């Protein structure tokens, strides 16, 4: 195939293997013909005789004790086959990263005695038709006692904040600590020696992936009690292991068919529909579809976490950053999902691609009464980068320095010790900035054009 955008391979020429030939060429997607002809089979394109439908009665409050759940009127709706409450869930805990050791048990599949966010699932209704399932959902009656709610990460950590989590803290505990921590050098000494101190606050709102295809699955009972799950999950193995753990059945009882995802972006990594659809199929012995409405996708599917980030930098007259302190807060919402991992990623990304001799960071994974957040495209890193690079631009402006020169002065080089105590290798930030500057006609002085990632410490 022709190279449409020839790429510059010079810098990494020693690392390229001669049989690696795809980058820089044009390769057709293997599924594109199916897409343009409408033949690509998404999970909902399959039909099954006797298909039943699941819909969910959800919490009307952000934080409340559940006093009573009355399903009698729902069961009386023509076409309603079953209602499912937490009592029907064999192991009512969803902890997506349980198999890599994430604890404690945190999120009920269906709420038991309380709800921690508006829209939390309480009762599943299984019916012959979507319309009957929705009518059943409307007729479930839940009585609540409302509890104080908290919606802000720093308010959730304040001494007088209501503790919303049964584990006893409004933050995820990392090996006994209140935050994922990074300690390198002596940041206070760095600030004391610095010519300037710059400190700013950055924050972001939750972002919904809004895939055009909403989250869903169809579960089909097989002979011998196995369950076949047609899913649009992005994570077939998360789906397989978490569903089996929730059903308290061996992994071999489940078969997941997936891989065709109508937009995911991280929003289809959590295991939200398959366990309940499996339970419904087991209880009714029918194929069952559970697919989010657009409203559910927008309200209750996990968004990218809101974050708040404070960055304090000590900077010398010549533009060297000598100390960086970061206080970072990830709003996990009511439950963990992937946020403990995302927060660790944020910490691993600090202090950005710069060599700074003194670094201190506390990255908090905070629980609030908001919709649980989770994976989305570079979660943990994306918002941290927004904050870090905004900080770099603002400092450059404050010092009346060219922002590219300011970055080049601080860019990490091969051989530098990073704050995580790993020696930097394979760096190319300097060359990328030099090349980008040339492409947009941004003149760099000779001193900066001569810099190299292989040129030793900054």
């Amino acid at each position: 195939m022709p190279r449409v955008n020839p790429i510059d391979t010079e810098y990494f020429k020693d690392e390229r293997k001669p049989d690696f030939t795809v980058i820089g060429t044009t390769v057709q997607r293997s599924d594109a013909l199916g897409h343009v002809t409408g033949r690509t089979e998404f999970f909902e394109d399959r039909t099954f005789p006797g298909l039943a439908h699941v819909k969910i009665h959800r919490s009307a409050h952000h934080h409340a004790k559940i006093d009573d759940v009355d399903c009698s009127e729902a069961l009386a709706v023509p076409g309603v086959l079953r209602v499912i409450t937490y009592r029907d869930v064999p192991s009512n805990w969803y902890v997506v990263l349980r198999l890599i050791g994430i604890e404690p048990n945190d999120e009920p599949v269906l709420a038991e005695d309380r709800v921690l966010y508006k829209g939390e699932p309480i009762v599943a209704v299984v019916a012959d038709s979507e319309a009957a399932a929705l009518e059943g959902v409307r007729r479930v009656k839940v009585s609540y006692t409302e509890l104080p709610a908290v919606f802000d990460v720093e308010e959730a950590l304040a001494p007088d904040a209501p503790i919303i989590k049964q584990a006893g803290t409004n933050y995820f505990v990392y090996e006994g600590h209140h935050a994922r921590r990074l300690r390198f050098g002596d940041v206070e000494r760095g600030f004391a020696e610095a010519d300037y101190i710059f400190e700013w606050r950055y924050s972001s709102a939750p972002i919904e992936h809004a895939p055009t295809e909403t989250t869903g699955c169809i579960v089909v009972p097989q002979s011998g009690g196995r369950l076949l799950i047609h899913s649009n999950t992005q994570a077939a193995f998360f789906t397989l292991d978490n569903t089996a753990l929730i059903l308290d059945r061996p992994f071999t009882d489940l078969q997941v068919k997936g891989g065709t995802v109508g937009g995911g972006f991280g929003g289809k990594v959590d295991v939200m529909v398959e366990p309940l659809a499996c339970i419904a199929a087991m209880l009714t012995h029918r194929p069952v579809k559970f697919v989010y409405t657009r409203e559910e996708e927008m309200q209750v599917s996990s968004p990218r976490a809101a974050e708040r980030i404070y960055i304090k930098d000590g900077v010398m007259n010549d533009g060297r950053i000598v100390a960086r302190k970061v206080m970072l807060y990830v709003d996990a919402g009511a439950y963990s999902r992937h946020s403990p991992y995302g927060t660790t990623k944020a910490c691993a990304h600090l202090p950005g691609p710069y060599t700074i001799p003194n670094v201190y960071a506390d990255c908090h994974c905070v629980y609030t009464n908001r919709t649980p957040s989770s994976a989305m495209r570079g979660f943990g890193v994306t918002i941290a980068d927004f904050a870090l690079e905004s900080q770099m631009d603002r400092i450059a402006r404050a010092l009346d320095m060219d922002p590219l020169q300011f970055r080049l002065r601080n860019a990490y080089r091969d051989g530098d010790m990073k704050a995580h105590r790993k020696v930097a290798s394979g760096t190319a930030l300097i060359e990328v900035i030099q090349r980008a500057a040339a492409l947009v006609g941004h003149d760099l002085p000779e001193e900066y054009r001569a810099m190299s990632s292989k040129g030793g410490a900054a």
Partner: protein
Amino acid sequence: MRIVNLKVNGVGQAFLARPETTLLLALREQLGLTGAKRGCAQGACGSCTVLLDGEPVVSCLVPAATVDGADIATVEGLADGEKLSDVQQAFLDGFATQCGFCTPGMIMSAEALLDRNPNPTRDEVNEAISGNVCRCTGYEPIVSAILDAAERRREGAKL
């Protein structure tokens, strides 16, 4: 419940429509044509776009009982055997698909545009697909593919 007779991709079809059956559900569940997708079921995303007597409609909002006698075109009817329509081929060649969920609706909106305007401007293409949401590619390759398809059609018409 009433019997609906219509043509889909040139072929006569009949089905029983309940009052709440939409054209989208009838196509997908009763006629087995799953190219049109259900993305929002509220007329907001365009994934279910088909042509109703040549005009693009969001089929999730069209009661099936109202289309008796209509002529419906869906993505399944565009290719002639293995030969793709110009719009399909341009989408394929122009990398205008990613997850593929919006693609059938996007293509039907494009077909309708080129049927009534063989030489659209970029702005006219933007307008024609303004009801079709894509969350993956960004719209640039899609718009470019539709302009490419327009050119292919004009070249084809000269032959």
